[in-house]
């Protein structure tokens, strides 16, 4: 495993929009190469948190360190996968993956970039689709392209905001395997926002529950990977998280 992940330290993070306080004094640390799932009810601030990590929003107060540096804007070693694949419809599949190399292209010529993109596409199982238009791909294939685009630059931090939310159950399982494989190979640090607790547990080292802008629960997932869906420990953990979410307060 290449050791390219990066340490993330969130301290006393506050974010409000106008009068609405979305995140309150949030503290969280991610180790190098750690995979953290974030779950929570809709509107609890998960996307906002990821956008802060991505540098797309600025904290109201508090700070986020990536390595030793404070995040103040968009950074090239951070990549985001969105709920919708956001592939550019006017570029072919291959050209879309090349977009992921934007910052590095000064050093390489077009041919090299395309070769790298083709290689990355092969890794996500889309060999042969290089010259298709995105609109002919299935939802799962689109997200594979988006994953290839996100990972081709070997980011240190990958942020996933419900990227599998719109996919059917079987495609999701396939995507879990793929994400896990690439994570093991590249070793990036990852934050996955998901509304599917079993998905959160299947993939993550830690599951973090956000509630009213703060961390309500932070559970380590100790089981060996790959984790069986009917594994007793897995279902028990899943139930624990769901119970906590549903708990009336």
């Amino acid at each position, binding site marked *: 495993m290449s050791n390219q992940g990066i340490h993330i330290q969130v301290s006393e993070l506050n974010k409000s929009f106008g009068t609405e306080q979305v995140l309150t004094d949030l503290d969280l640390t991610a180790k190098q190469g750690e995979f953290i799932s974030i779950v929570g009810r809709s509107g609890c601030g998960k996307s906002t948190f990821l956008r802060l990590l991505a540098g*797309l929003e600025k904290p109201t107060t508090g700070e986020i360190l990536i390595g030793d540096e404070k995040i103040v804007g*968009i950074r090239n070693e951070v990549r*985001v996968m969105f709920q919708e694949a*956001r592939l550019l419809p006017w570029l072919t599949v291959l050209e879309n993956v090349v*977009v992921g190399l934007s*910052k590095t292209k000064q050093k390489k010529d077009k041919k090299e970039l395309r070769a790298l993109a083709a290689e990355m596409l092969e890794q996500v199982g889309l060999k042969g689709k290089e010259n298709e238009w995105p609109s002919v791909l299935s939802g799962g294939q689109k997200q594979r392209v988006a994953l290839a*685009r996100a990972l081709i630059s070997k980011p240190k931090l990958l942020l996933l905001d419900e990227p599998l939310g719109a996919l059917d159950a079987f495609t999701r399982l396939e995507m879990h395997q793929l994400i896990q494989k690439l994570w093991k190979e590249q070793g990036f640090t990852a934050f996955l926002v998901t509304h599917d607790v079993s998905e959160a547990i299947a993939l993550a080292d830690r599951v973090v529950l956000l509630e009213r802008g703060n961390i309500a629960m932070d559970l380590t997932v100790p089981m060996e990977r790959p984790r069986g869906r009917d594994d007793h420990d897995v279902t028990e953990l899943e139930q624990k998280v769901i119970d906590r979410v549903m708990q009336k307060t």
Partner: protein
Amino acid sequence: MKKIQSSILYASLPWILPVTLLICWQIFSTYEIISSRFFPPPTAIITTGISLLQSGELYYHMMISTYRALLGLLIGGGIGFLLGLINGLFPLTGRLFDSTIQMIRNIPHLALIPIVIIWFGIDETAKIFLVSLGVLFPIYVNTYHGIRTVDKGYIEMGKVYGLNPMELFTRIILPGALPSIFVGLRYSLGLMWLTLIVAETIASDSGIGYMAMNAREFMRTDVIILSIIIYALLGKLADVIAKVIEAKTLKWHPSYMKIPKK
């Protein structure tokens, strides 16, 4: 065999009526059932067309008209496109200029003909000015709209993936706005010919419209009808060219996509 025959019949179905009409026209006009002064037979129009072609007169007027149309399109379309770009890209200039432009847009440009004649006389400037004005607004409106409605998600993605502002424009905003810009262009082409027809008919000493107007004085209905047909053909030609360019540029767009293999 039967199937082939019926499919040929089916394909020719839309042509039956116009062809019958033409044949009737030819017969009625030749035998003076209708006045051949008012409705010269199609064959006479073709003959006139050939002789005007041979004398070079037709070519001369067509070239002048095409020149006016294209120059007007270039000037008006160029200005409309640039204004649309700037106002679409920069909210502040959009806020400053857009409502004024929308106001001017409401003036029917052909209503300006009398004053345009006073300003420019009946020389080239007047016609090119009118054509430019006619094509400016559809291209402006559709460029502006196209740029404003590019999916913000793509732009955000582009930023996260490190595209600089220039790349954001060339790789995301402009291609995203193109379908709308083409709508404006095709609409403009129609207006371009329409404006030119009116302008050439009212105030000109050359061009297809002048040819028709001049023929009126001599009751040359054959020349008038020929002029009308030429306008129609030029209009169709412009539309076909635009369509081909559009289909080539937007080949990624599902509505232009060839049915995928397999």
